[in-house]
């Protein structure tokens, strides 16, 4: 099978991305590996000394690890739902974004559950979740949901890259090792671009996109129900389901904007990831930030107005400058107001400013996850007797931070590795009506 001239020209433009690893990329990979090793030191300490090396104690049993879990899984879900919706609605400008979204959904979806495993401590008992499941438990629902989701996301990614693999495997001018070419050939599953294959592939991708969208909404809600189904103040809220869905998609949009910026700069993709893409993603960010702001306002207003004792305690902590007040202010300003203002004002609606706002928004949303988990646990529903005061207030230790940094570094490293196998811009999508010649 030979690709057309147009496809070859496109591929030559993206070839450096999958052909070689530049010096700068090698340094960056080296740095990421160092950060991962730093996380490994923290992990070693945690395994050998136990969870005493973390800040988690009797009162605050969840901390940084759970905040990271929600964060990473959230952006993973966002990647899946965005790619599905953009595909289903046949949005013309979707092409580079869909590829980034799908990659993000896989990479973040793999990293997120690792933090759960770090939190539970006893890795040797992880299989008990499957051997002795309790169907009534939201945690069981989440285990099953994430497993199903990851399988679906992998299949979805595969469906979207089959055509590209076929092109890579047959592009003889690509300077790639033989093993890589053979891998592309195997993974292309003999795709030759016949009408029947095109039709089948399109229908399967569409079917999976149709399943993914509602599935992600449901499993994102399941993630929120781990908190919502408890009776704890600040968690027991009927609004948590949609709250988490919107927060996930908002954070995911922010991460995708950051990825767009990085890949556009790194691989000189100005012709493919244009200012228009930033503008449209910015609008999406604006709408989602506004929605998220509405949900936040509704939740806090309801809690404040009800004046229920423990709800008021948690709210008091979030508004107290001596507790979490400054962080809460940061979250609301940079997580909600800044994205709206940046995109709403035309002069600020540039790729650079949108990316800057998105970066701060993502940081704010990570802090928001922390503020969901920790202040509530520091406010027990039932009075706790005979407890030490140092157990009531949670402070993360360096081991937890090292694992957090290691997790972020792992996500970036996985992204780099995957971008060395799959071009960020889907080559096959730019071949609209050109037919692909089939070698006899």
């Amino acid at each position, binding site marked *: 099978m030979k690709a057309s001239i147009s496809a070859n020209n496109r591929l030559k433009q993206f070839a450096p991305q999958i052909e070689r690893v530049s010096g*700068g990329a090698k340094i960056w990979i080296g740095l990421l590996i160092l950060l991962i090793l730093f996380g490994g030191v923290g992990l070693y300490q945690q395994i050998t000394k136990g969870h005493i*090396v973390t*800040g988690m104690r009797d009162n605050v049993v969840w901390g940084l690890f759970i905040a990271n879990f929600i964060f990473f899984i959230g952006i993973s879900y966002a990647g899946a739902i965005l790619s599905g919706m953009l595909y289903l609605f046949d949005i013309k400008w979707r092409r580079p974004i869909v590829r980034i979204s799908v990659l993000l959904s896989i990479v973040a979806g793999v990293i997120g559950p690792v933090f759960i495993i770090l939190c539970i401590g006893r890795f040797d008992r992880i299989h008990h979740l499957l051997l002795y499941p*309790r*169907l*009534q438990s939201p945690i069981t629902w989440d285990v*099953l949901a994430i497993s*199903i989701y990851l*399988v*679906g996301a992998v*299949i979805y990614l*595969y*469906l979207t890259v089959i055509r590209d693999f076929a092109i890579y495997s047959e592009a003889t001018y690509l300077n790639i090792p033989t093993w890589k070419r053979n891998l592309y050939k195997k993974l292309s*599953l*003999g*795709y*030759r671009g*016949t009408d*029947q*294959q095109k039709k*089948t*592939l399109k229908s*399967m991708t569409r*079917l*999976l996109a149709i*399943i993914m969208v509602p*599935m992600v909404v449901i499993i994102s809600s399941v993630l929120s129900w781990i908190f919502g189904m408890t009776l704890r103040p600040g968690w027991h809220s009927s609004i948590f389901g949609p709250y988490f869905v919107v927060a996930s998609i908002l954070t995911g949009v922010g991460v995708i904007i950051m990825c767009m910026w990085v890949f556009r*700069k790194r691989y000189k993709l100005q012709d493919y990831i244009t200012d228009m893409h930033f503008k449209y993603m910015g609008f999406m960010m604006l709408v989602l930030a506004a929605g998220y702001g509405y949900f936040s306002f509704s939740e806090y207003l309801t809690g404040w107005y009800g004046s229920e004792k423990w709800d008021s305690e948690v709210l008091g902590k979030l508004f107290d400058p001596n507790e979490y007040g400054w962080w809460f202010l940061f979250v609301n300003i940079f997580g909600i107001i800044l994205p709206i203002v940046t995109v709403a004002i035309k002069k600020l609606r540039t790729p650079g400013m949108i990316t800057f706002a998105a*970066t701060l928004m993502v940081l704010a949303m990570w802090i928001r996850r922390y503020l969901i988990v920790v202040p509530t646990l520091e406010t027990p529903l039932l009075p706790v007797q005979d407890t030490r005061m140092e157990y009531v207030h949670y*402070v*993360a*230790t*360096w081991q937890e*931070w090292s694992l957090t940094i290691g997790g972020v570094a792992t996500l970036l490293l996985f992204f780099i590795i995957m971008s060395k196998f799959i071009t960020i811009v889907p080559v096959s999508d730019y071949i609209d009506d050109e037919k692909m010649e089939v070698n006899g």
Partner: protein
Amino acid sequence: MYKINNWRNNFLLNHKYFWCFLFFFLMAANSAVYAQEEEEEPAKKEKSRMGLSTTQMPGDSIELSALLRAKIDDVYQKIGDAEIEFFAVGAEDEISLGKSTTNALGTAKIKIGSNTLEKNEEGYMTFSARFDGNDELKGSDDEVSILKANMTLTPIKEDSSLMVKINVSTPSEDGIAPLAEADVSLFIKRMIGRLKVGEGTTDENGDAEINFPTDLSGDDGGNLYITAYIEDFGEYGNLAATSVQAWGKPVSYEFHELPRTLWSPNPPIWMVLTFFVLMGAVWGHYVVIVTRLFKMRKMGG
């Protein structure tokens, strides 16, 4: 040199946002988020404290109970897994009565017969308990002296009412002397501990009559394990007497299977059905897609 400098400048220029972000992150991080524990100095031995008490029981037996505690981090904690040796202290020497290891609540107990124990001129029996210490704790001991006393418990059933008669006395030169003003508490044994059901005070004859409730649940035979207890009665220590009476209502402990609910081992049926329908739908679609993927391979031929 020009090329290296140029590369360095380009690197810094192209990655300025990265350096800005790294700087911001480091500056924004609150030093309070780091709660690294300082290395602990080698622990010095803490002081331990022993508390010895006695309970005189029917049949001339005495239960010695030693409570071992230590002040750690300004909080008194009960020390488990420590060996305690008990002694009967005589005029000239002490006789070992045996050893026992403290449980998780820091208590070690032994039971001895009091008939052969040495008494001093005033009739006191003296006991001691000793902890020799370990790598973390210093040793400690305690001593207690008590006079002999007896308590009897007599259950009385008259018509439909139940009563327990208590008599407390002590051996004297004239035979037996009653002990008045002793506060007696009545307990029955329950699954985890005991339930107080009555109390009274002995009169000048050493007697106390305590009404017993008639609406208590017993075991499957209706039996109740009754204990009369006098706590810390001056020179006599603690006193106890027990009896088993079929004064409770028989309770059947036949196991009934729990209904399917949110909180029982088996989930509600609607939950199980929903689970299988959703799993089936999603995995079914995955199977269809993967099957068609492999069929697509043949279409290329």
